[in-house]
């Protein structure tokens, strides 16, 4: 295990460059070559979801407020996100990736991994670099000429992702035993996925300040001193090209949050938006065939205070009404001067009850109603049927693209 994994690199990471901005520039050719920012709401206080490379070159960063971006880049063009467009591109990319292997995992809406182990003979015999260039060309042919992606190839997921980030935009790199030290020598610790400020401080505390020093550290140091857990051993293996991240993740909570469109809303107007979020959470929960036992409600105030509370029930629930009833009760203790609200369901269980209940008839009826409403909304469009209480909230609380999860795409 001291040596770098000598097997043929068969993991390919594909990352669309500045995805949403690139898709907008693809769809609207007059935006090409111009600084573009994608936002969820076109107000000065809104945060930038994605910036085009032209905007990034002017110092604009993801998460930056639009008003701050305008100072750096007065000509920046702000566009509201258009989820249907991004979903389409996501599915086209997924289709392309699935042509090469049955083992494709989308990590988010704009990046995915192809595992070429156990692929067909015809594909296995081909050079992965050639396949990488072919995928780049297919993106241009099948979606549009402006589409670009970074591709990284290595023996495990984390090094493939690292390789994909080496030459943005439109790069294609491979990390092997021959160049691992050269690559690590060109990076900062925080360039490694999973090493943010906190882990960087942990590594710094034992004198590890570069990825190369991280690579040279032994298992006892990483396991017993730096990470104080098996995580240290995983990092030792990761940096040597062994796979430790090929694990299936399970959904643990379902939630939504909303930044209030105005900060002078009445309590009733805020609870209507909370109700809207609960309906959205209920729909997502049931789409995953799950029920929940816990509700967690939080709020952020204008004074940057974070308030939260939660409750746990003995029996699982799944209907919008049940979620909202609990959320509303919890929300009564919320402070004044709210800026953002959110609701999560946790302690998830199977939608199908595992044991007989005294209230089986009532639960069956509630389940039937929820299923009919979900079917109607699926068939005729989101929020075709919803409570009268949220009749006026739809123009404010839009569905936005979920980052990090591809479950609802």
């Amino acid at each position, binding site marked *: 295990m001291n040596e770098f994994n000598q097997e043929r690199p068969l993991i390919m990471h594909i990352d669309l460059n500045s995805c949403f901005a690139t898709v907008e520039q693809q*769809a*609207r*050719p*007059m935006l090409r070559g111009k600084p573009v920012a994608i936002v969820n709401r076109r107000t000065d206080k809104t945060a930038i979801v994605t910036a085009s490379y032209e905007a990034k070159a002017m110092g604009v960063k993801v998460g930056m407020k639009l008003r701050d971006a305008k100072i750096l880049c007065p000509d920046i063009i*702000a566009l509201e996100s258009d989820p249907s467009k991004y979903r389409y*591109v996501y599915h086209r990319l997924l289709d392309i990736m699935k042509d090469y292997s049955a083992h494709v995992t989308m990590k988010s809406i704009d990046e995915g991994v192809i595992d070429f182990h156990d692929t067909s003979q015809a594909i296995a015999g081909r050079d992965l670099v050639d396949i990488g260039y072919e995928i780049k060309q297919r993106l241009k042919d099948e*979606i*549009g000429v402006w589409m670009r992606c970074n591709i990284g190839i290595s023996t495990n997921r984390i090094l493939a992702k690292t390789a994909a980030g080496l030459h943005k935009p439109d790069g294609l790199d491979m990390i092997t035993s021959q160049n691992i030290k050269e690559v690590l020598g060109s990076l900062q610790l925080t360039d490694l996925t999973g090493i943010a400020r906190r882990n960087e401080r942990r590594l710094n505390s034992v004198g590890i300040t570069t990825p190369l020093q991280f690579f040279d550290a032994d298992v006892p140091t990483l396991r017993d001193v730096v990470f104080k857990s098996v995580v240290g051993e995983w990092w030792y293996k990761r940096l040597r090209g062994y796979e430790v991240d090929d694990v299936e993740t399970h959904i643990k909570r379902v939630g939504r949050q909303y930044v209030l469109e105005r900060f002078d809303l009445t309590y009733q107007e805020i609870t209507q938006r909370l109700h809207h979020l609960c309906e959205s959470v209920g729909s997502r929960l049931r789409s995953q065939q799950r029920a929940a036992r816990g509700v967690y409600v939080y709020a952020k105030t204008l004074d940057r205070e974070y308030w939260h509370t939660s409750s746990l029930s003995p029996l699982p629930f799944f209907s919008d009404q049940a979620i909202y009833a609990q959320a509303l009760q919890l929300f009564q203790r919320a402070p004044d001067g709210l800026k953002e609200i959110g609701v999560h369901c946790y302690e998830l269980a199977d939608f199908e009850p595992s044991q007989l209940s005294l209230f089986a008839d009532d639960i069956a009826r509630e389940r039937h109603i929820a299923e009919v409403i979900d079917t109607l909304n699926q068939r*005729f469009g989101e929020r075709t049927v919803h409570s009268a209480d949220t009749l006026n909230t739809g123009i404010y609380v839009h569905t936005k693209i979920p980052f990090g999860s591809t479950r609802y795409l």
Partner: protein
Amino acid sequence: MNDETFLNETVEVIALFKAGHHPCQPVRFKRPNGKEVSVTELGLRHPLPNGLKTVHAFDVTDGGTDYRLIFDSERLTWRLTMEADHYE
């Protein structure tokens, strides 16, 4: 900032249906005010759910302005729903 105008105009469209990755391409369209637009590039075509049916959004340009055309494949109608230009 950008200059987007949202519209709902019925337009007459000449479109090319062919084999390949982009089987339908609007080539030219005529707006109710008589203005004719020649499409120089199809930016993106994507489906949009619209109740029971799916309509197709075509983001196109004439080289100076970007447009969005919506094709209802059930009614066989085209609508111009957005134009955006200048970006200054």
